[in-house]
């Protein structure tokens, strides 16, 4: 009896979520304006990125500070294959998977030299790798112009589904779907895909091997797990999701330049995971959404707030935003180091770490 109730409840929650997600762009668009729909689109991209990085950092426990490189690879792959830059205009169902595979290849490429590294050392090398990719993008305009250097690539094709361009407005069933709405639905579908991929991986033979690797790599090796392969698989699959998000970003923006793929972006994505709850998919989604939306809210609130209360700008809104953001991170790590919505397992790990520290101190 309770089983059927639970199932009904699950279906109920699922339906409510589905309806909310389906009408979200219209609700947000009519209340807050289409700029906010665009922000939600970005939130979905960041959810995909964070879930990708979560495979590497959260599941397998490999600290990666250069994850944005795979986003960049996916974005540039799409940009080069669907823009006037090379006059190549391949359809998205070729360019997105190709970009994802290319990113995964780079993931393995990065993974190979760092197999023996752990913790801080791994973080430094991945950080360097992320920068190398960005600097390559910046400088691959001579002697042969591949990436168009710091100017970036412009006029990238929007995604076309069945002859309909997502870059235009469509009238359907009396509703007008703007480009940001159309992209919202596409991103939503792919985000759900990434969520399913990540959650199924987590609860599989591979996912167990990752947890084993994270908890004790020597015991994992002694239990017959091929450490090299399982690490490379984590890097590859994480990069794959990053590559997909990159391709989508490219088509959505219509423009890419190396500037979009700086170290701060990598740190932001890592912060999404840490704040949300490392290794826990719902937590990571929450973290990604919060860290995309909250800074935008602050951006639109801080300026007017100062004008209304103090009558002048005391602190530049951009600076205040970063200040508050940094403060929030510090407070969060002090008060709730396991994140906003951790998995039970992570929570236990943190609790035990704390107890051990208390015993020693």
């Amino acid at each position: 009896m309770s089983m059927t109730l639970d199932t009904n409840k699950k279906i109920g929650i699922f339906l409510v979520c589905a309806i909310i997600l389906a009408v979200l762009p219209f609700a947000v668009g009519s209340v807050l304006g289409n700029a906010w729909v665009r922000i939600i689109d970005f939130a979905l991209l960041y959810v995909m990125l964070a879930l990708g990085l979560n495979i590497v950092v959260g599941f397998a426990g490999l600290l990666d500070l250069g994850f944005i490189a795979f986003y960049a690879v996916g974005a540039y792959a799409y940009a080069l294959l669907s823009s006037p830059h090379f006059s190549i205009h391949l359809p998205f169902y070729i360019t997105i998977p190709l970009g994802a595979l290319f990113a995964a290849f780079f993931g393995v490429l990065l993974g190979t030299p760092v197999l023996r590294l752990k913790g801080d050392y791994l973080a430094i090398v991945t950080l360097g790798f992320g920068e190398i990719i960005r600097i390559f993008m910046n400088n691959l305009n001579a002697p042969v112009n591949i990436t168009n250097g710091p100017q970036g690539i412009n006029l990238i094709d929007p995604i076309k589904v069945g002859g309909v361009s997502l870059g235009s407005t469509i009238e359907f069933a009396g509703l007008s779907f703007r480009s940001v709405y159309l992209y919202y639905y596409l991103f939503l579908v792919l985000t759900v895909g990434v969520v399913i991929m990540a959650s199924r991986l987590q609860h599989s033979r591979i996912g167990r091997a990752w947890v084993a690797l994270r908890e004790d790599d020597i015991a994992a090796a002694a239990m017959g797990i091929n450490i090299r392969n399982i690490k490379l698989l984590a890097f590859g699959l994480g990069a794959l999701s990053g590559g997909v998000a990159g391709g989508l970003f490219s088509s959505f923006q219509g423009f890419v330049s190396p500037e979009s793929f700086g170290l701060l972006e990598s740190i932001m994505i890592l912060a999404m995971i840490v704040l949300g709850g490392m290794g826990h998919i719902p937590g990571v989604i929450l973290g990604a959404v919060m860290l995309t939306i909250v800074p935008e809210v602050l951006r639109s609130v801080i300026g007017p707030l100062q004008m209304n209360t103090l009558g002048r700008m005391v602190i530049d809104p951009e600076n205040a935003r970063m200040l508050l953001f940094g403060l929030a991170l510090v407070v969060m790590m002090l008060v709730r180091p396991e994140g906003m919505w951790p998995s039970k397992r992570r929570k236990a790990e943190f609790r035990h770490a704390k107890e051990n520290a208390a015993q020693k101190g």
Partner: protein
Amino acid sequence: MADVLLQIEGIHKRFGGLHALNSVGLTINKGEIYGLIGPNGAGKTTLFNVLTGLYQPDEGTFTFNGTNLFRAKPHKVVETGIARTFQNIRLFAEMSALENVMVGRHIRTRAGALGAVLRDPRTRAEEQAIREKAWELLDYVGITDVAEERARNLSYGHQRRLEIARALATDPLLLALDEPAAGMNPRETDDLKALMSKIRDGGVTILLIEHDVKLMMDLCDRIAVLDYGKKIAEGVPEVVRKDPKVIEAYLGAAHA
């Protein structure tokens, strides 16, 4: 002559200036319980780490069940049929007991990332089989009542048993146990002894490091003694016990 399962010869392992293993050779036959004893720092655990691929030996030969395992990677060693436990228990602390054993099935199962994502019937069947086998093994070592508990929360004796179950999950031909009775009371030690006999009767050869001399004399078919990285004696327990070199190593020259 009995069937040889594991044979090493002339194994050397140096750590900087320390010659941890100095030309160690030994032969383990199928179906026996083979004991390894020696004073602290004699190189027992180093030898274990060499035999399970965690350390790469500098010189020597290492064959197991007809396969050359010299400098083989740990997963290759496990695949060939050697499983181990650790002196200081190394379970996956935040995983449940059941999940720990399920990890042990990794090497004997094949489902990859694609199978995991698609959840095709073959993957689901394999996952089901992993779960059933893990339950079976928990039952075999007698700890099904704590299957869903986190490994960290188990009692010491249960953790030791769980480590054995996890090692058995890899379908080993040789089970290498590093001080499994350390810290156990006499009653738990007796239970462990019964479990080891059961495992051996089930067809798994056992290599055992232990300080409990009485336990070793009772249980082992043959014993090798290491001292300062060298094998100083090998044979049936009664002979080894009376060997003057062994007595000297343990008690000092005056007693020899």
